[in-house]
């Protein structure tokens, strides 16, 4: 697979198959922009409605940023992305090889923290609320796999 940050060119979106695109990206801001570009293009094809496209991009963004900030603690690493069609869902797989997500998120996304003035803790809550389904796995070898499901319009 190409690592886009090495300027190998952007892989095309495969509109014919079940796997639409696979990316190997660095956990940094330039790669995040590339990821969001793909999210926009793919969402435009399969989700159609502008508000759903925004929500899809935002959810993907939040999870990728978690890879950067929490998975790799800002020290960099690789994020594997796969966009796939599964039944009537558009599914985004986001895998990092960092420290692994906190155990509490494996039992379900916590409700919002009680303190409304709390400045943190809204990212995954938003993803869980906006998407059709969210699955999180702490990987046996290393890191975290997040699967974000959005119901397709076509």
């Amino acid at each position: 697979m190409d690592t886009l940050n090495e300027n190998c060119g952007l892989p095309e979106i495969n509109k014919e198959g079940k796997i639409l695109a696979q990316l190997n990206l660095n956990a940094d801001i330039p790669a995040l922009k590339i990821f969001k570009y793909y999210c926009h293009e793919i969402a435009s094809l399969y989700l159609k409605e502008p508000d759903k496209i925004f929500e899809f991009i935002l959810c993907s963004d939040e999870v990728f940023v978690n890879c950067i900030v929490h998975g790799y603690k800002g020290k960099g690493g690789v994020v594997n992305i796969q966009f796939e069609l599964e039944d009537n869902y558009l599914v985004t797989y986001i895998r990092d090889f960092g420290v692994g997500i906190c155990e509490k998120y494996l039992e379900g996304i916590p409700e919002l923290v009680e303190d409304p003035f709390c400045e943190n803790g809204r990212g995954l809550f938003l993803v869980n609320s906006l998407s059709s389904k969210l699955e999180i796995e702490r990987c046996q070898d290393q890191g975290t796999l997040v699967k974000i499901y959005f119901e397709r319009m076509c």
Partner: protein
Amino acid sequence: MMIETCIKEHIKVVKVSGEVNFENYREFGDGLLRSIEGSHNILLDLGGLSYLNSMGLSCIVKAYAYVKKDRRDLRLCELQEHIKKLFTITKLDKMIALYEKQEDAFASYKK
């Protein structure tokens, strides 16, 4: 992302436009805190804001807390529907007053 401020009818209007994302949320947070300095109540006009992530939401919460500590108030107006939904989902609309139009927000300050 752009922040513009003006004083109107003794209220400081802080207008945010563009996107707030991982790349610029710190700049947004710092700019917002600078904009709300002073003694005025604040009206945050988000009509031009097209993208807001959870870190941007946190910046707004921080600004609200700062203003409340100062015994002032901060209200929001002109949110685009997809942005307003974020405040609803996170229940921030129960804490921070949201108004559809700027004039409605001004009217609320006069009550």
